[in-house]
């Protein structure tokens, strides 16, 4: 069984293609979205999902969220005393999703299609693949998120569709893709994005907005990490509140004081104007690259939870002069699209008439030496080999030569980006090949870039003259663990105690209650405290029916206090 997984910055989801349709799989709490959060309890057990996210406010040193932004970087995250890498945390989330899928389907799940932002670079993609392997999943394909959303929308129509634009603003990343459907072929024309723009950034803006209003005794310093987390969670709630009303309260409890301010929608819009302006650049770039004008677009599709914000919707409407389409729930579209791709991979008969082609969103090339018109020599010039928005799989060859007489070895730095100087581009790796001694410019070296459907790069160097053709695989300067290392790490992860699935609901309720305890004062706090003690007592009894009743009661009370739990 191949499943489709949306591994998001804030929330993740898993879906399956069955009976001619994509459907989301609920987790042990009955929700289709699982927060991408991992927390460790005092006795070393791992919690994933809502429980972990709620523990973010109460035990920030033991919890990690938004680690998708760290994928591909080598920064470790500390949960208490234990060190995790972003891949390992993602693997824990993937494992939880895998368990949910197996429980729902009643059969083992071994492979998955995992989505990544279209603008993820090679390193980040490889890290995502490793995370899947660490979770015990064979990663059939890495699918770009806007493409997945396009699939989810496009699968319903078999007739041709004029180009449409997918506007995917998630928790941490922003992607734009222009997609066309013709004769059952779903073709991505162009892709662009910003890896550092998402709902989290809007949270930061909200926090800054409120902090600016608080002075003196009420001032909230940024230095305390626990306080930062609490502020972030409060900002998230306020942001959601603004989706429905024109003002929303920003409230938190810190050091025994309750701080509450009302935030107006227009004040927030003004503060977030810079972020909104950043949304234009990828849109312009993808439109320019595809050569499509706004009047040729049939519709604009909104994907990603952050597009629920009224300011984002207004901005999109103003940009295109028409109302965007959000007919599929923005939080679900990507996972459903991943399920469709999984179905395609499994060659489901209902999908026989569909094909999907995607593009690579960056220009890939090497650094070379160039002579200008005055004969001066410039080094570190970027020579593109695969232009951006080339359909993948793609394979291009470029011929290079030596610069000095009797040069012993030629070094190739592999870069990705759009700048003319390689210093401004992202370096993916380094290759070198020895060459026979010859006068400068007489040795020919063929450099072939092969980009596969998952967006992973392979570089091959050959020297036709000597007849010898060497195949070199690009290798990160940082570690690129081999299979043995991955297996070892998987063992380590497997050895971690994970909170049993059946208990997930209880853990979530407890975590929520604890968070509410911290968030309220006085009488209400006492009341919650008593509920917690009562619930823990019931848990000891191990009677499922009683436990369920107690749990429902507590949830009801907490809903009354703070409004419904949101995802």
């Amino acid at each position: 069984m191949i499943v489709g997984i949306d591994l998001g910055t804030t929330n993740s989801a898993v879906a399956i293609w069955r009976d001619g349709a994509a459907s989301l799989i609920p987790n042990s709490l009955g929700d289709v979205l699982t927060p991408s959060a991992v927390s460790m309890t005092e006795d070393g057990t791992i919690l994933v999902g809502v429980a972990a996210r709620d523990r973010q406010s109460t035990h920030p040193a033991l919890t990690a969220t938004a680690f998708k932004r760290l994928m591909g970087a080598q920064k470790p995250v500390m949960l208490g005393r234990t060190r995790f890498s972003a891949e390992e945390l993602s693997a824990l989330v993937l494992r939880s999703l895998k368990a949910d899928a197996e429980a729902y389907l009643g059969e083992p799940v071994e492979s998955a299609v995992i989505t990544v932002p279209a603008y993820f670079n090679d390193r980040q993609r490889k890290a995502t693949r490793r995370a899947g392997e660490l979770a015990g999943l064979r990663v059939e394909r890495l699918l770009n998120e806007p493409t997945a959303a396009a699939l989810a929308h496009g699968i319903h129509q078999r007739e041709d569709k004029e180009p449409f634009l997918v506007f995917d603003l998630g928790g941490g990343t922003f992607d734009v893709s222009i997609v066309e459907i013709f004769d059952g072929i779903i073709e991505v024309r162009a892709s662009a994005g910003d890896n550092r723009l998402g709902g989290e950034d809007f949270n930061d803006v909200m926090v800054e907005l409120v902090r600016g209003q608080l002075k003196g005794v009420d001032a909230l310093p940024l230095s305390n990490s626990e306080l930062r987390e609490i502020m972030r969670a409060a900002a998230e709630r306020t942001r959601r509140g603004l989706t429905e009303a024109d003002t929303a309260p920003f409230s938190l409890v810190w050091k025994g004081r309750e701080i509450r301010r009302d935030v107006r929608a227009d004040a927030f819009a003004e503060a977030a104007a810079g972020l909104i302006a950043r949304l234009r650049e990828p849109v312009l770039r993808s439109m320019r690259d595809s050569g499509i004008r706004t009047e040729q677009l049939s519709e604009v599709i909104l994907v990603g939870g952050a597009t629920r914000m009224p300011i984002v919707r207004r901005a999109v409407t103003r940009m295109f002069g028409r109302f965007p389409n959000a007919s599929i729930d923005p939080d679900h579209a990507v996972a459903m699209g991943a399920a469709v791709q999984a179905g395609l991979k499994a060659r489901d008969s209902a999908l026989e008439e569909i094909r999907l082609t995607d593009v690579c969103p960056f220009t890939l090339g090497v650094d070379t030496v160039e002579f200008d018109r005055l004969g001066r020599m410039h080094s570190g010039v970027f020579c593109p080999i695969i232009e951006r928005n080339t359909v993948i799989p793609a394979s291009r060859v470029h011929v290079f030569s030596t610069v000095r007489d009797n040069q012993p070895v030629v070094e190739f730095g592999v870069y990705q980006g759009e700048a003319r100087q390689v210093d401004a581009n992202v370096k993916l790796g380094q290759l070198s090949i020895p060459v026979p001694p010859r006068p400068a410019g007489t040795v020919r070296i063929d450099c072939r870039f092969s980009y596969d459907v998952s967006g992973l790069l392979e570089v091959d160097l050959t020297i036709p003259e000597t007849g010898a053709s060497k195949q070199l695989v690009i290798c990160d300067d940082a570690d690129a663990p081999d299979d043995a290392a991955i297996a070892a790490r998987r063992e380590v992860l497997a050895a971690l105690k994970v909170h049993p699935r059946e208990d997930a609901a209880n853990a979530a309720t407890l975590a929520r209650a604890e968070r509410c305890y911290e968030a309220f004062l006085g009488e209400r706090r006492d009341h919650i405290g008593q509920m917690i003690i009562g619930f823990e007592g019931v848990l000891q009894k191990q009677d499922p029916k009683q436990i369920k009743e107690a749990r429902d009661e507590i949830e009801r009370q907490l809903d009354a206090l703070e409004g419904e739990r949101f995802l």
Partner: protein
Amino acid sequence: MTGEDWTELGLAPTADHREIRKAYARRLKTIDPEADPDAFIRLRTARDRALSQDPDRQFAVTGARTDAEAAMGVGNGEAPDADPNLEPAADAEVQPAAAPDTSEEAPPEPVLLAAPFQRIESLLFDPDVRPDPIELQQIVTEILADPALERIDIAQWVEGFLADTIVRGTPLSDPMIDPAAAHFGWGQDGNQISRPPIIDWILQRREDSIFEAGLIAGSPEYATILHALRAPPPTQLGERQVRRQSVRVEYLLSYFQTLHPTMLATLDQQSIQFWSDRFVAEGAGNGFARKLREWEKDRIWKRGLWPVERRGDWLIALCIFLMPYLFAWALLRPGYSRVARFVGFGWMILVVAAMLTNPDKPSELKEAPALDLERTRLVSSEHDLPPLLSDYAGPELTLGAMKTRNKPLHDLLVQRWTALRAGDRRTWDLERSVRETLNDALGAGLRGGEYDIHRRFWQFRVDRARTFQQEDAAKCDAFLEGTLPGQVFPPEIEEERRALVREVLLRPLSNAPPRRTGTYRIPGSVVADARALSKLGAPRFDAALERRGTAAEHCAVGIALIEAAISAPRKVGRTLLKDMSSAL
């Protein structure tokens, strides 16, 4: 586009976009790109080639200068009056939608005010209006601050308009560059690879305008020459004055060509032509005149662009000044013979004369980079000719290909190169000569070509005329009549043109009929077809045939005639197309 590609697509050669894409879709469903990437790559390449040779793709052109390609998004900087949706309404404000939706109002349609754009046009191009750089900058800033620019299509249109206007209106439009570049992020780092060439040109122009300001301020001699070059050619100047200026003008032009190419676009083209002819004429003069010229050239080149500073060595100057007086005083005292006085005064006069005519010693040159004359020398035919061929018809037109397939033309080019090398001409002379040779060869090849070449060529002309027809019927008419100056080809058509040119130039020509203008007979059947194709009534058609209708009608008739000729049966069409091509 090869036969293999069509096999790959499983399609007979066609120009129909939809057919090609359908065939691609059909084939794509039979292969799995993941399992067999090579098969997919082959299929995709075949599709791309098939689509790019298709003349149905519409592409607007800005009418910008030759160097600047219009590549700003599709509709690529479309000419301002072409798009009815974006026609700026005169003095209209933001209007709400006419018919509100059942559920909610449609988003308001912002409209740009037309006045600022018209003002820019008149400031730059109207000879009666005095251009005011401050006003220009202000207007541009105003336009960019308009909230209507939030709409992407409006923003793109404005960007295209500004880029196009800057290029057309250079150098008067230089003050517009900074606000536009800042707003649209033209000079931003990290995005240079896929920057459209027009933007590169504009950024280069910005650098060059700074250089120009420096030149005008710092070098009055060359500043005058620059102004003269911006005016029509100096036909009234006397021969001697022209000769005196000639070397300096040559230096300035080659300086621009090497270091500040956008400056050339700001000069009057006829002036440049005048001077180029002049250089050739002077280079062909007698040996002594040439030697003198070469000597002067070296002198001017060494001297550089900036005027020399006088060395303030007042003391020595004073002594030198006073010396004749001392001498005279000494000589006029009694005791000197007449011969001695004669010699003394004569010597003094000589010294004074020498002092007055001696050029001052050049001080340190002001930061002008040394222009290496070596760089513009001709090196070898294999080195110099290929870039010129590639400029003419794309990189596929290689010297080797020409040598194997059209040796006479190859030999002719090498002969021209050798002649210029022997005369120690420079690269710009070679450019002109090669271009002329290739133009002649192309004309001969088209005149003497086969039926299929003729058909392709005339099809190409129809496509080109159609793109004009969409913009401006008068241009289309002029194009068909052959009177439209300075043509620029949009990229799609350019590729077609190049392919055609390569085809013609790489075919050996057995007999090239001479150029023949004059009338030829069009068979009645072709005229009838054309009448039907043109969709004008018979009377209007006939009137337009005799050039008595409107420009749009002439244009439509011209296109219809060519199309009828192309699709006529072979027997008829062959002779007709040959006749039509005999005037090329």
